[in-house]
């Protein structure tokens, strides 16, 4: 760097980053502040929000959404409930499916690996709109899925019209309660505007169909990440375990899984961030229905602003969602970190040193493609 003229680098440096700063500032940072203002105002969506017609209403929008009983809070809570079930369904399933596919493909004797890998990965590069149209067709009442179910004597539900919650259905089947006449100990107590019966509905049949679609779509990308990590597994370690007489399952749990731990952590974190933001599928497939069981905070925020003219509330929902994602991912990192944290950190440092020596395609490539896969 001695040869560099510091003065020139000063100017060139700023010059090089100016376009990026300009665009990010204009379309990321400025919007956040504008939205913050709107979320504190009563703007009705007409003309500019910065005229005297729009007035400051303090935290009214937030309190209508979080504190006061009413439709606004009810809808937000429904959307949280839906997304909660969505997240705890999708994240584990897609992680397990991705890992399973990766383990299958990692078999040394496998022929046609490229073919299978391509097949499993392909859906994650396809537009969510195209996939959604396809699944609307597959999951139609007389669609392919129900035709296949019929082979096994199962009378498939009318997926995207069915608002019954899975927990409700299971409870009904085992005789715990009757869906048509829910017990009063479930319907009477209510928290934040929703009764226990509503909170513990589980994902609706319609939401489950979307969950299956998302798991199917995104597992491929995560599979690639697991596959890469599996190929790094030093053979000696596994051989040593084998000499110890460990069977396959033991080897998998005691050798492979610990080795994959960082990747699992990454996949789960990315999964969390992506699933809480789910929007495209709701926009294309269900518009929040049936009976609001596929309403998510992201879609609700969009709907509040763009169809109900409640821009303040819409912006407020966006900020609440932002805060929620931030808190949850922090919490999750902290939870999954605890024990081997120290050892982990050391390993990470070593990996980073190695990574620096190797020319990578960029550490964040996959992370970014993940985010795309999740949100699109």
């Amino acid at each position: 760097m001695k040869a560099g003229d510091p003065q020139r680098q000063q100017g060139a440096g700023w010059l090089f980053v100016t376009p990026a700063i300009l665009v990010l500032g204009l379309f990321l940072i400025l919007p956040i502040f504008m939205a913050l203002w709107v979320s504190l105002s009563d703007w009705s969506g007409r003309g500019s929000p910065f005229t005297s017609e729009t007035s400051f209403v303090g935290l009214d929008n937030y309190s209508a959404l979080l504190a006061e009983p009413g439709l606004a809070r009810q809808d937000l809570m429904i959307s949280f409930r839906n997304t909660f079930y969505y997240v705890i369904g999708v994240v584990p399933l897609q992680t397990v499916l991705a890992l399973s596919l990766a383990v299958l493909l990692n078999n040394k004797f496998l022929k046609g690996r490229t073919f299978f890998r391509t097949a499993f990965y392909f859906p994650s590069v396809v537009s969510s709109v195209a996939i959604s149209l396809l699944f609307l067709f597959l999951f139609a009442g007389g669609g392919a899925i129900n035709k296949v179910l019929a082979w096994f004597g199962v009378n498939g539900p009318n997926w995207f019209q069915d608002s019954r919650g899975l927990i409700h259905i299971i409870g009904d089947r085992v005789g715990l309660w009757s869906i048509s006449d829910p017990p009063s100990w479930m319907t009477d107590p209510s928290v934040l505007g929703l009764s226990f019966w509503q909170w513990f509905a589980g994902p609706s049949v319609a939401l489950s169909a979307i969950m299956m679609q998302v798991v199917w779509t995104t597992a491929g990308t995560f599979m690639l990440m697991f596959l890469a990590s599996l190929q790094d597994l030093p053979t000696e370690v596994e051989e040593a375990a084998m000499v110890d007489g460990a069977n396959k399952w033991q080897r998998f749990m005691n050798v492979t899984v610990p080795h994959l731990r960082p990747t699992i952590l990454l996949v789960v974190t990315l999964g969390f961030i992506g699933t809480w933001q789910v929007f495209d599928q709701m926009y294309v497939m269900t518009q929040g229905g049936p009976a609001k069981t596929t309403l998510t905070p992201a879609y609700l925020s969009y709907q509040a602003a763009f169809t109900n003219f409640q821009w303040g509330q819409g912006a407020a929902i966006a900020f609440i969602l932002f805060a929620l994602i931030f808190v949850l991912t922090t919490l999750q990192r902290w939870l999954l970190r605890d024990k081997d944290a120290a050892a982990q950190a050391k390993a990470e440092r070593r990996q980073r040193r190695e990574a620096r020596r190797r020319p990578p395609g960029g550490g964040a490539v996959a992370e970014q493609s993940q985010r795309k896969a999740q949100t699109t």
Partner: protein
Amino acid sequence: MKHRTRRLSTLVAFGLTSTLAIAACGGGEGFDDEGSGDGAAATDGGGEPGSLVMLIASSGDAETDAVEEATAAWAEESGNEVEVRVASDMGQELAQGFAGGNPPDIFYLDAAQVAEQANAGNLYEYEAEENDDFFPALQEAFTYDGTQWCAPKDFSTLALQINTAKWEEAGLTDDDIPTTYEELATVAETLTEGDTTGLVISPGIDRAGAFVVGHGGWWLNEEGTEPTGASQEVLDGLSYVQDNMAEGHFAYAGDVDAGWGGEAFGTERAAMTIEGNWIRGAMSNDYPDVDYTVAELPEGPAGPGTLLFTQCWGIADASSNQEAAVELVNHLTTPEQQLEFAEAFGVMPSRQAATDDYTESFPDDEPFIAGGDYGRGPINAPGMGQVVADLNSQLEGIANANLQQVMESFDSNAQAVLEQ
């Protein structure tokens, strides 16, 4: 910042396409301009004088073509330009237009939306020529706060459609056409067989509401100031639907894998359905082989009851071409033009002057027209959209719903909105 930007553009010349350069500068300069200006959103809305944008929610090619033809004729005659756009999501596209200060100059507006939009100041108030010739019920439907905001475009009412083949198969005759709710339930039971359900309706208050009206109830009081959802009449109307669903004679379209009543009827999963005369187009296009007859909705305990649907030609307050827009509306609402629309895509004219000709050409639509005398328009109060949406979503599960609870929650939600 400025001089850096200029230096940047020299750099950009190195290897960038011109599109990008324009795009990048466009963004940057726009910000500077607005920053130094008064900050009001740019209103390039109406465009140059003489050019109008019309946004329609089309039922299909027939409607789009007919509207385009009619506007083109006017445009040629008057020397204006009209661009007809078909919305894929009317509500959202309108909202973005209003917020962006560039709404379409003229657009379809549902009666249920008038109060909302008028209240937000989005509508331009006008009166078309010969306003008194519009059906009084329709003038009323577009009146909010003592003002009629726009000219009724057309209307429809709900009637009962009956699949002729299924009707005869079940051994029913013309004498059996139901005139009371009891008879309706009875024939529905008779017609329910195998894959076929007696009566299939689209979910929500826009269908079930007819039975509420038949029982003498309504969601709000006459003045539209107080909710009356938990009143006995409303509950009776909804219970009627609920009970028949429980017995399996009635079903929602979704339950028989259809998007709406007409689709269920067309695929013959339904022996009867309740729709407006828009079902005609769908039947002749998609299910030309299904024969059916149309009857007025049966009378309820409180007399005849049906729902009335209507849209008007809304004109935007932000339009810079309101005069031309009103002229266009005048052209589109002449009796002759309304009859042409009727011919092309089967809408019923909103003008009384056109009614006789209409019934002459479409004698089968008599039951729909008849509903015009006693039909009830939609809930028309600002802010009710979400409340109604919530009620609709709860009524999707009507089969298992506790109606008392559902209507009480509707009342408290509506109360909160109406008080504002």
